[in-house]
């Protein structure tokens, strides 16, 4: 019996062990559940808090304005002429079903402007229309802003960490797997690589810079298409010397194999990037942007956050790559990229999750401090940070000082708890 159990444990993969350990950690597990809830709120913000009704009957027609509104936002449909630019609250409905919170974050409730407290007498027709968390200077509903701020926060986390993950996985696995002496190239290949790099940059990006910037002005998808095209040009130029490598070996001296200090190069790059104070770097990049844009801020946050992931992965891979199963894969003659992607990465990914989790916390924190300072995020965009900043200099508006900040705090805390839980789940000293 005991033997059988032992066997079972051996067959368990590392990830399964981590999940089992993670589940034992109650605060982390509850954080994870709370995170799913917050994520759902973020996804369905338009359906929870909206100034348009779910369903209404108007002059003999039935409409589903909330759903229609989402469609319009996605560019799938248009408003019928009788409904474009209407004040939803003042229409004469025959039948109507309002959302849970009948205010959009940008709805201006003129009767309740200039900071109306949740406990004060509000000028609303019925409790259904009450501002449960008060209003701000323009009469915008704080509760609705908090719900829609969740979408922004989740987007910040997802977008910036995707960017950071892409870069971090790339550089981290390069440095960690190859180290300083694993990547061998002929001298000529190295020289060709250095010489061709400016050319690749020139043809992929410099020569196409107007194409790229024009596409960005038109639409994000066009830009992505041209950007991927640029990357293709770049990689096909850089592929030339590396494909030639095996033929170049025959040349004396220049064809000799030397190792490329990948780890030193990547580590130095990380060191340099980390020594720049990221908030100041963000501020100065945002300052030179023509017009503020949330997307841009998220991407820039991602660009400054990948170093942590890369460092973590590098350390993990340096450990993993000397393990027997990697040696076995090498002995079987698998190509390097396959060993990296199929064999070493999956075993290091759990540890990457830790830095992703902490990374999301700090990305959300960074974005909210930027919008708190009113930098980089468009003024009409309602975020937790921008709501909190309204409390400055208005001491009587305690509800604005408390609620949005509390949201930031909770979100950051649950990501930190999840990160902590993962760290403990991975720590072999805690495993019995």
């Amino acid at each position, binding site marked *: 019996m005991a033997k059988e159990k032992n066997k079972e444990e051996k067959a368990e993969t590392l990830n399964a062990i981590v999940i089992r350990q993670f589940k034992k950690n109650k605060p982390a597990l509850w954080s994870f559940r709370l995170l799913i809830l917050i994520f759902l709120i973020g996804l369905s913000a338009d359906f929870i808090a909206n100034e348009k009704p779910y369903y209404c009957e108007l002059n003999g027609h039935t409409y589903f304005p909330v759903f229609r509104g989402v469609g319009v936002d996605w560019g799938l449909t248009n408003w019928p002429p009788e409904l474009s630019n209407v004040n939803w609250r003042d229409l004469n409905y025959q039948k109507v079903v309002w959302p849970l919170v009948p205010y959009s974050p940008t709805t201006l409730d003129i009767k309740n402007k200039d900071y109306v407290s949740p406990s004060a007498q509000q000028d609303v027709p019925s409790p259904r229309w009450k501002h449960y968390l008060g209003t701000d200077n323009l009469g915008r509903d704080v509760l609705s802003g908090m719900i829609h701020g969740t979408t922004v926060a989740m987007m910040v986390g997802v977008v910036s960490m995707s960017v950071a993950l892409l870069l971090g996985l790339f550089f981290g696995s390069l440095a960690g797997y190859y180290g300083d002496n694993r990547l061998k190239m002929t001298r000529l290949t190295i020289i060709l690589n250095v010489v061709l790099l*400016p*050319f690749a940059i*020139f*043809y992929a990006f*410099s*020569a196409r810079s*107007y194409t790229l910037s024009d596409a960005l002005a038109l639409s994000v998808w066009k830009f992505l298409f041209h950007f991927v095209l640029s990357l293709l040009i770049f990689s096909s130029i850089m592929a030339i010397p590396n494909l030639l490598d095996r033929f170049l070996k025959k040349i004396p001296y220049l064809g000799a194999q030397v190792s490329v200090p990948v780890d030193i190069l990547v580590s*130095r790059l990380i*060191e*340099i990037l980390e*020594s*720049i*104070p*990221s*908030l*100041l*770097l963000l*501020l*100065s*990049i945002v*300052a*030179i942007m*023509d017009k503020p844009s949330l997307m841009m801020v998220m991407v820039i946050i991602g660009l400054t956050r990948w170093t942590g992931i890369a460092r973590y992965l590098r350390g993990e891979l340096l450990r993993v790559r000397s393990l027997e199963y990697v040696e076995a894969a090498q002995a079987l003659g698998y190509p390097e990229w396959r060993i990296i992607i199929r064999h070493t990465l999956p075993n290091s990914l759990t540890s990457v999750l830790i830095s992703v989790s902490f990374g999301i*916390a700090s990305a959300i*924190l960074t974005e*909210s*401090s930027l919008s*708190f*300072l009113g*930098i980089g995020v468009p003024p009409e965009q309602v975020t937790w*940070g921008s709501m*909190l900043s309204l*409390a*400055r200099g208005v*001491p*009587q*508006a*305690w509800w604005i*000082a*408390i609620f949005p*900040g*509390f949201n*930031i*705090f909770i979100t*950051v*805390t649950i990501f*930190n*708890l999840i990160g*902590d839980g993962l760290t403990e789940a991975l720590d072999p000293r805690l495993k019995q």
Partner: protein
Amino acid sequence: MFSYILKRILIFIPTMLIISILTFALSKLSPGDSVRIALGNQEAQGETNGSADKMAGEKAYLDMAEQLGFNLPSFYFLFSNAATPDTLYRIIKKPERDNLERLIAQYGDWPEIEQYYHNIKKVDFNLLDVKKDSTIFDQDKLIRDDAGKLLLEYKDVTIQDMLTEMDKASAASPLLTGIHQDVQNLQASYTAIKQKATPSKNLIPSIKWYGLNNQYHRWLSHFLVLDFGISYIDKRPIWSKIKEALPWTLMLNLISILLSYLIAIPIGIHSARTKGSIGEQVTTVVLFILYSLPVFWVATLLITFITTPEYGMDWFPTFGVGEVTDGMSWTDVLMVRIPHFILPVFCITYGSLAYLSRQMRGGVLSVFRQDYIRTARAKGLSEGKVVWKHALRNSLIPIITIFASLLPAAISGAFIIEIIFSLPGMGKVAYLSLQSRDYPMVFTVMMFSAFLTLLGTLISDILYAVVDPRISFDK
């Protein structure tokens, strides 16, 4: 150990150089016309009475550009295409230069494009000397506006339209015959651009060398002797503004880092020693909450609730650093300053305090598991001696490395705190200059912060080697 420290210092220099290049590149990408801002934003193209005035305006502009070094190439070399001439940097106005680059990208024949550019300028200048009366008021305005727009236009259709429009307007009155000739020259030169177009030249890469006489070189060499130029807002030297701001930031950071180390080490050790007790669990939770509390939220809450009479707790001053008059004794100065500093220092301290204590606790716990601690206990040393003499030194190692990451975090943290509490430090200065687009100031502050950060890393590396002599042996 010495060679290790030397190596760290040697890495410091190229890192700083790379950061300087990055900062410089960002400053070059910043929008707005620096020369015009430095000239005091006066409208150089305002009401002018003739070409002489306009010439004087242009001359003042060029003089200022020269004074700021904008008549020089940006960097030691330029990597671009064969169609771009190496003298393009001499066109100082960035929007015009950008538009010329765009035209080069479309047509690739610089001599013709240059001729076209000069012809636009010629129309603009000559128009100023035409004797005007009310009959040609509309035409005059139209041609002048179009000439201005042409300098910033690259779309073929729009240019054609404007040229035809100008041609028609200049033919309308005998007073404008000279101008009509100029406009026709302009049209001819535009046709020439299109006829002699060689866009393929854009696909040939080329490198142009400029040597040491360039903007970056000048900027960096001035930077090294603490000459950062002048602030655009108030025309004061940047160095004197930084001299005023830096002490506040340094003081704020040093006090809070010192405080957090002083408090965190005992907390960390104590909670490691009493692991598992209720008190320790409460401490852990409190520290975790402190660690996750966003600093700007805490600052906002503090300001809202305990600096105003609104909730009956007007305990601290809200903004600034207090008024100090000459002739006050130093105790009086302290009495004025300290209340202003309590909240900001608290805000910067609590986050790093929580982080440090957590790390210290982990460090002590892992050291407690070591054999030599068991040995020390086994030979009957008192618990105090075991902890303070044997365990402390080794558990300090992780804490010291954190110093490197604490300094940049503290600088960023102080940045927001200074803005919220309106303290006249570097963060506040940087924020104000960001809002008024005073770029020389912004990028100087950025260089300074990077320098401080690197310095912190260097110090912690050296401390690390001092505390743990094993470091110098590997690698």
